[in-house]
């Protein structure tokens, strides 16, 4: 210790490091740390820089992160600032009473999206925030202030590239938009500096974007002048030519990651509420239903029921009080794929619900959201308030005489509440249990009144259909499944993400093109679509298309669009056990076949997964699966055996390996 020479700031910094070491270990650790530090200094006097570099470069995780935090190296700006960016509530100006107002606000929105000065966006859906988007935003804000740059730092949603979070986009007049990925707070100052000078931080740049779609009609906002890109630009890939975007067909999610979810002007700037204006201005409710029927849009929540037919039934149901309910229960233990979307573009859902309300003659709507989706609840709430403020929700919307109010309700946390009648119970403040059907919700739903319950993606799709026509939508996809679907990839994938693709896209292609195959680099062994009740299918089925009927025939379902990937090392029997356990936890207990069935099923599957299986058990699982699918009250129980049954069917080797050798 004697051979160490300190500079005052070095000593100070080192004291901070020591203070961050838990008290009990301090004395023991100190000599060791000093020894390491001395080695790093190599005889030089120890300065703050050396201590910091040593912490940053030489320490193993997790100590490194902790000490970096203690030294303030990870977050240059205070946490309070970050909160300020988030909380600086956006104030909407003006009202939208007619089509002319809407056009005016559209222009105002486009001004925000492509300003004459500088717009810097940070992707701040939950997945971005989890990876530090808030501190990045604060650091950008800080840099803008310090460098005296005139820029609008905006929190936007996510564009689906979860692996690159947090992302920052720089939009400067006359230049293409530059998107940076995996941005840290350290990089913020550099990005602002480059942005102000019209330059690019090349090693962080993911891509450039030359233009964005205004709506589905083909209108665009051009960012860049149409000239050939400058030399520096040429090195940054054109986003529209990257597979990740080229292979997607973005209809529902087209605004996500571009607009600020808390600025209604920006949604309107990209063609928002035009479909509503069109419907209220020139279509009868029956015309709206006709377009939706023609589009052959099927429910995105699981069952795949045609939305137009559901709406028609509700519009014909007797009664003058009707409701529209958005199912945002999202209980699938997979990925919460719509959460990111909702946090990015809540107005798309609101417009869809307005259209549904107009079509069926409802004047009240509820958005029911998963209890964990705190941020989504917040953002939908803000969006509703803004729509009310400008007059797009409330009485006499756009002067048409049509009135509609909307409320958001946070659920209590029960998977079965995704089932539409259980959801209605939850909305009424009752227990999480399905109701008998009939009566169907379209005849007697919320508070006994005719009610349309639709998945949030279903509802969000409607505005595009109304704007561009059902025929156009029906021209996309396969004969049985029209349009596009948001798919979320998770499990063993190199790049977890969510994407929107045309129905009929081959599942294997989705995994390779967007998620880059498995994370382990090994072969895909199995995949599961449709959440916990979906079948676990073998790699030989990767050629299946994204299609309600094709997946149904293969013993799985499209469900709400989760796609779980498992590699060769995955113990599929154990995954089936995990899912059976999920049903055990989530069975509501209303009906005996499910309540007792999932318990017994879990006992048996656990026994097999532990390597103590018998042939008699396998036979029993089959019988139970059949009995439960026939006798259970709702789909939760009916499909609870699907994972283990499909594993038994497609992975006999794995199952055989789990058999007790002595008896069988």
């Amino acid at each position, binding site marked *: 210790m004697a051979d160490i020479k300190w500079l005052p700031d070095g000593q100070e910094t080192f004291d901070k490091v020591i203070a961050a070491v838990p008290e009990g270990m301090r004395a023991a650790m100190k000599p060791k740390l000093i020894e390491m530090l001395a080695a790093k200094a190599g005889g030089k006097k120890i300065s703050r820089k050396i201590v910091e570099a040593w912490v940053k470069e030489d320490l193993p*995780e997790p100590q490194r992160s902790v000490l970096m935090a203690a030294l303030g190296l990870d977050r240059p700006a205070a946490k309070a600032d970050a909160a300020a960016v988030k909380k600086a509530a956006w104030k909407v100006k003006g009202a939208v009473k007619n089509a002319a107002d809407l056009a005016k606000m559209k222009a105002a929105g486009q001004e925000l999206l492509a300003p004459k000065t500088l717009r810097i966006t940070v992707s701040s859906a939950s997945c971005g925030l989890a990876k530090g988007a808030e501190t990045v935003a604060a650091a950008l804000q800080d840099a803008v202030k310090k460098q005296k740059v005139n820029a609008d730092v905006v929190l936007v949603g996510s564009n689906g590239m979860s692996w690159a979070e947090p992302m920052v986009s720089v939009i400067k007049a006359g230049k293409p938009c530059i998107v940076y990925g995996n941005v840290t707070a350290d990089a913020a100052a550099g990005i602002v500096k480059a942005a102000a000078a019209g330059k690019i931080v090349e090693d962080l740049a993911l891509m450039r974007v030359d233009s964005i779609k205004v709506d589905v009609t083909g209108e665009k906002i051009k960012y860049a002048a149409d000239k050939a890109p400058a030399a520096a630009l040429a090195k940054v890939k054109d986003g529209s030519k990257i597979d990740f975007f080229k292979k997607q067909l973005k209809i529902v999610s087209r605004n996500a990651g571009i607009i600020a979810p808390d600025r209604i002007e920006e949604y309107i700037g990209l063609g928002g509420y035009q479909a509503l204006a069109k419907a209220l201005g020139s279509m009868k409710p029956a015309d709206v239903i006709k377009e939706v029927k023609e589009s052959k849009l099927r429910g995105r929540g699981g069952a795949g029921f045609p939305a137009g037919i559901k709406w028609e039934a509700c519009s014909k149901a007797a009664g003058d009080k009707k409701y529209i309910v958005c199912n945002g229960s999202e209980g699938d233990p997979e*990925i919460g794929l719509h959460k990111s979307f909702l946090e990015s573009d809540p107005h798309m859902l609101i417009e869809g619900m307005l259209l549904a309300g107009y079509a069926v003659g409802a004047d009240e709507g509820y958005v029911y959201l998963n209890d964990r989706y705190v941020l989504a609840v917040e953002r939908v709430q803000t969006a509703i308030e803004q729509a009310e403020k400008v007059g797009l929700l409330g009485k006499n919307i756009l002067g048409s005489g049509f009135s509609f109010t909307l409320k958001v309700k946070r659920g*209590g946390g029960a998977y079965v509440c995704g089932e539409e009648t259980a959801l209605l119970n939850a909305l009424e403040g009752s227990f999480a249990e399905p109701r008998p059907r009939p009566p169907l919700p379209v005849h007697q739903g919320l508070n006994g009144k005719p009610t349309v319950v639709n998945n949030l993606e279903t509802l969000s799709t409607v505005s595009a259909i109304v704007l561009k026509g059902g025929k156009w939508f029906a021209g996309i996809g396969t004969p049985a499944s029209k349009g596009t679907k948001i798919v979320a990839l998770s499990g063993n994938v190199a790049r977890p993400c969510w994407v929107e693709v045309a129905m009929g896209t081959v599942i294997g292609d989705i995994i390779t093109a967007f998620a880059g195959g498995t994370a382990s680099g090994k072969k895909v062994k199995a995949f599961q679509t449709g959440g916990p009740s979906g079948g676990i299918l073998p790699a030989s089925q990767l050629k299946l298309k994204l299609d309600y009927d094709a997946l149904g025939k293969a013993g799985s379902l499209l469900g709400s669009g989760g796609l779980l990937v498992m590699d060769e090392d995955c113990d599929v029997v154990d995954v089936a056990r995990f899912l059976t356990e999920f049903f055990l936890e989530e069975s509501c207990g209303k009906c005996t076949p499910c309540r007792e069935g999932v318990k017994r099923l879990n006992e048996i599957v656990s026994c097999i997964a532990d390597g103590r299986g018998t042939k008699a058990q396998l036979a029993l699982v089959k019988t139970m699966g059949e009995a439960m699918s026939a006798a259970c009250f709702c789909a939760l129980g009916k499909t609870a055996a699907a994972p283990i049954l499909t594993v038994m069917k497609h992975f006999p080797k794995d199952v055989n390996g789990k058999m007790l050798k002595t008896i069988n």
Partner: protein
Amino acid sequence: MSDIKWLPDGQKTFDKLMAAVPEAMRDAIKPKLLQMLAGKAAGQPVSGDLVKTWVKEDLPEPQRSALMAALGMKPDGDQKPAAPVAAAAGWQGNAEVMFERMLQEVPDMMREVFRGKLMGIANEKAKGGPIAEDHILSIVKEIVPDPFKTNILKAFATMGGVDLSNLEKLIESTPGGQETVIGLLHAVQAEFGYCPREAVTMISQRKCVPMAVMYRLLTCYSAFRLQKPGKHVVTVCTSTGAYVNGGGALLKQIKDKIAKTGANITVETARDLGCANVAPAIMVDGEIFSGVQAQAKLEQIFSESN
């Protein structure tokens, strides 16, 4: 060990001393120390002062200085003996609990020094009489700086019961019947961290929903807690995606660490955090973290909750 008789403050002081011993050595050293201490006490009940005298007189360096510091004793060289902490002449109402609560905000190392000082001030205010709640309250308001002040005052507000004034206002501004209950319960949990019986009863009465139904709602929905959670609540993502990627490891790591450190942290799991795309994700007190951020946050709350 059975032959040691403790006075309450003696036991407390000894525990503090043990806490200052590096964890790895604690078990090995404890019997030895107890043996030494028993020798010193020679059959008398062990008081806090005795423990301190023993540390000062009998222990070898460097342990002696380290433990003296840990017990808040003045280092050698300082000739003046530490001023004995004056005792209160008596306490009224919740005053003693409030006094202790106030001291909790002081970092461990300095707590004993502050105890003496603050006790002196309290005695002064009480003019020799028993210390009342008001005396403590005025000390907090006049002397204690923020943010400690706010923390302490907040804690005082719920002391000896649950402060239902916010809930009362919320119920008044929430028209409707049973359909409002889940929302109200979310608000209760956001305020208290769980659903205390008093709050549930109030909702039951005002919204005319039987307690039996309230209980069934509280238990059929997984979002609600009936027990007060620890200082922090960590929710670990147990989505299928996380599971396939070996997500169980993180949960185990956190649970083991809590078992080892006794940190005041509640661990829960959720299959639907909705962030499997940045797995393994955790939620800490409602905020989502993943990867490096998650590790750093965990370290932070562990160091706060010891």
